[in-house]
């Protein structure tokens, strides 16, 4: 089982911040930042789209932004004292979009070069988020960013849990039980699940309980990768919950 406290010292964002603090550009920091970007590119793209750019332009701008990011400019902005990857990334995107020079450079070079393996990023983490559409249209860009971020966190956690099950030959079990991860126990038909999976109800209850606990560990680890202090995990989760709630 994962020991979060021990692992936290080497989470991706803390690695990036430690290198920013010492003004070094170590390979480890670049790798950590690259991995974070690969997971959290969708909120950036969503925010740029919501800022009024066409899909094509938003793709180009997202490309350019990540090129800038991965070249190290973000590290100079990172403040370990108040470091959350989400908030820094959002600020960086907003600054990037207000810098007309970025737009001009993109237009000058035609906006056709691809430095980021965009299709690979999409293929490895497809998103099938569905949203209450009517209210969606009135959300400001920063809320779009936060909601997309929240969705990315849970989708990433579910993906990791599915991979763990698949690697043990238990993807069918995950597929059958994961839809009950947040369902009230009184609303679950353990008898039906017992029949469909061919194991006693007691086993279903035990596995589902452990699946929930394992999901929780993975989710918290996923959030921990984006904050600088272990104490920030709960706050970050609460922030994202609030972002979803305030958008009702």
């Amino acid at each position, binding site marked *: 089982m994962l020991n979060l406290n021990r692992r936290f010292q080497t989470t991706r964002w803390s690695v990036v911040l430690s290198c920013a603090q010492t003004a070094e550009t170590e390979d480890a920091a670049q790798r950590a930042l690259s991995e974070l970007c690969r997971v959290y590119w969708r909120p950036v793209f969503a925010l740029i789209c919501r800022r009024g750019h066409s899909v094509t332009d938003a793709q180009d701008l997202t490309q350019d932004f990540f090129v800038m990011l991965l070249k190290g400019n973000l590290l100079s902005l990172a403040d370990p004292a108040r470091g959350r990857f989400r908030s820094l990334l959002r600020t960086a995107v907003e600054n990037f979009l207000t810098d007309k020079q970025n737009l001009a450079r993109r237009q000058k070079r035609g906006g056709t070069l691809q430095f980021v393996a965009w299709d690979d990023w999409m293929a490895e983490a497809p998103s099938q988020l569905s949203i*209450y559409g009517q209210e969606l249209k009135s959300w400001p860009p920063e809320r779009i960013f936060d909601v997309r971020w929240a969705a990315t966190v849970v989708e990433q956690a579910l993906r990791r849990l599915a991979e*763990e099950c698949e690697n043990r030959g238990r993807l069918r079990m995950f597929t059958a039980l994961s839809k009950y991860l*947040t369902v009230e126990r009184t609303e679950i038909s353990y008898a039906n699940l017992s029949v469909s999976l061919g194991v006693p109800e007691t086993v279903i209850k035990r596995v589902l309980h452990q699946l929930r606990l394992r999901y929780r560990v993975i989710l918290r680890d996923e959030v921990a990768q984006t904050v600088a202090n272990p104490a920030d995990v709960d706050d970050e989760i609460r922030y994202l919950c609030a972002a979803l709630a305030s958008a009702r």
Partner: protein
Amino acid sequence: MNEEMNFWGLTDLPERAAQDCDRCRCGSFARVASGLCVSCLLRSGLDSNEANIEDFDTLLAVVDIPDRDWQLGSYRIWKKSVAADCGVEASA
């Protein structure tokens, strides 16, 4: 790049984003592919009950719910690459 992904970059399935989905009883509006509420999934991370956590690998090995031989996984068609009389090749 999928040109249909244009609903503010929120989802690969803009037709789903554009439709009203059922709200969760918590009042939230966003759901992932399995239908689970994003807000409920997040809040479950705040649950502090860590009693009785078993070793997950051990549990998976012991519980007799194996995948079937024909199990394909949770794939979906990503892009059609080639179409011919004999069929369609696609990335999934």
